[in-house]
């Protein structure tokens, strides 16, 4: 395995082109564990740690931009992530433990696209766009078209995730990430990421996604529409929760059976809405 440490995105793209199975190394929290388990064996590994352009959080005209190499801890600590973008800050602080949050990055996590991880649902609820660079320039992909399946994304060989753009969202929007896990620091058994805004008593914006409930983050537009314009009464939330659960395709594993996860979805949705509206 050849290890390269480019200092610019262009150099990284050139390095990625040097072998068919070249991989990017971000924080290593997942990829090095996979190397240790001999699940991957790339000929070329492109370490991204020296590319300063991929790091940090900045304000943009429409919201917030997070560089792909920004760590979970840096996101959890950023008090500019308020309103709708608070869903990211909330998720970041609940990922694994301090030692992992210190090295793990948002770009690494979403490029890996493990549906049990916390970022896929969080950035889906936030309505993010993912910036992807290749030798022909950069393109921006809506999160709804980014996650294609279990460990599959819109990122093509030779491409690199460079940033995540989070829209500010409507006025009065609030965000929250509710994680249900067996023990502190575990992957979610199921999770709900939510962004909503109220106009008086009525909900005039809502977007949510469930994590660990299918091959990718689970977002059901009909479930959101069921709540839009309502006063978010218990029967509205229950109906929306059923619509969401009906589309779920969770795996059965050590964290819970498929059936159990499906049962959790409406309950967690209710809890998440209660938490976010009481903020």
């Amino acid at each position, binding site marked *: 395995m050849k290890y390269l440490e480019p200092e610019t995105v262009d150099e990284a793209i050139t390095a990625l082109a040097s072998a068919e199975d070249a991989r990017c190394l971000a924080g290593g929290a997942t990829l090095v564990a996979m190397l240790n388990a001999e699940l991957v064996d790339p000929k070329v590994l492109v370490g991204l*740690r020296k590319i300063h352009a991929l790091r940090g959080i900045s304000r943009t005209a429409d919201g917030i931009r997070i560089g792909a190499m920004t760590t979970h801890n840096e996101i959890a600590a950023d008090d500019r992530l308020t309103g709708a973008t608070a869903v990211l800050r909330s998720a970041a602080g609940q990922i694994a433990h301090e030692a992992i949050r210190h090295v793990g990055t948002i770009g690494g996590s979403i490029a890996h696209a493990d549906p049990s991880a916390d970022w896929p649902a969080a950035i889906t609820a936030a309505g993010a766009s993912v910036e992807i660079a290749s030798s022909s320039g950069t393109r921006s992909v809506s999160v709804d078209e980014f996650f294609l399946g279990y460990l599959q994304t819109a990122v093509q060989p030779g491409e690199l995730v460079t940033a995540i753009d989070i829209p500010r969202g409507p006025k009065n929007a609030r965000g929250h990430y509710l994680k249900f896990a067996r023990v502190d620091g575990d992957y979610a058994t199921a999770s709900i990421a939510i962004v909503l805004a109220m106009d008086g008593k009525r909900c005039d914006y809502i977007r949510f996604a469930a994590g660990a409930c299918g091959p990718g983050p689970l977002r059901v537009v009909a479930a959101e529409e069921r709540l839009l314009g309502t006063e978010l009464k218990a029967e509205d939330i229950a109906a929306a929760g059923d619509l969401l659960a009906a589309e779920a395709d969770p795996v059965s594993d050590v964290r819970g059976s498929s059936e159990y996860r499906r049962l959790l979805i409406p309950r967690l949705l209710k809890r998440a809405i209660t938490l976010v509206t009481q903020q």
Partner: protein
Amino acid sequence: MTESVHIDLRINGEVRSLQVETKRTLLEVLRQDLLLTGTKRGCNQGVCGACSILVDGHSIRSCLSLAVAMQGRDIVTIEGLSDGARLDRVQQAFLDAGAIQCGFCMPGMIITAKALLDKNPRPSTEEIRHALGNNICRCSGYVKVIDAVHRAATT
């Protein structure tokens, strides 16, 4: 084919020049090449915390770090905590509290406790439990570990 490269790592205040294969983790290099065997290999997946070390003052997993990617960082292992004559106060507190059973998880526990106390000198029991949620003790000797961290915070 595995490629090997020359690297310089700053470990416990000393620069060590090494020839390492690119695939090897810092944990492997610490234990096998430098014989710093205080850092333990548990799960090798970043879950158990036995391989915790300090990098630029933060506790991280040496099993999740490729040695080649650690150049230029300030690495401290359990061996680097004492000055050779006297134990670090966190090590001493673990001894005084009798927090050690089989001892396997202790280097990782002490490193994590050290990183916590450097940031938060007087943590609450809840904060200690949260920070050490990182580190698994298969003897399940957690109560005295928490006592030890409190003790270290007050000495």
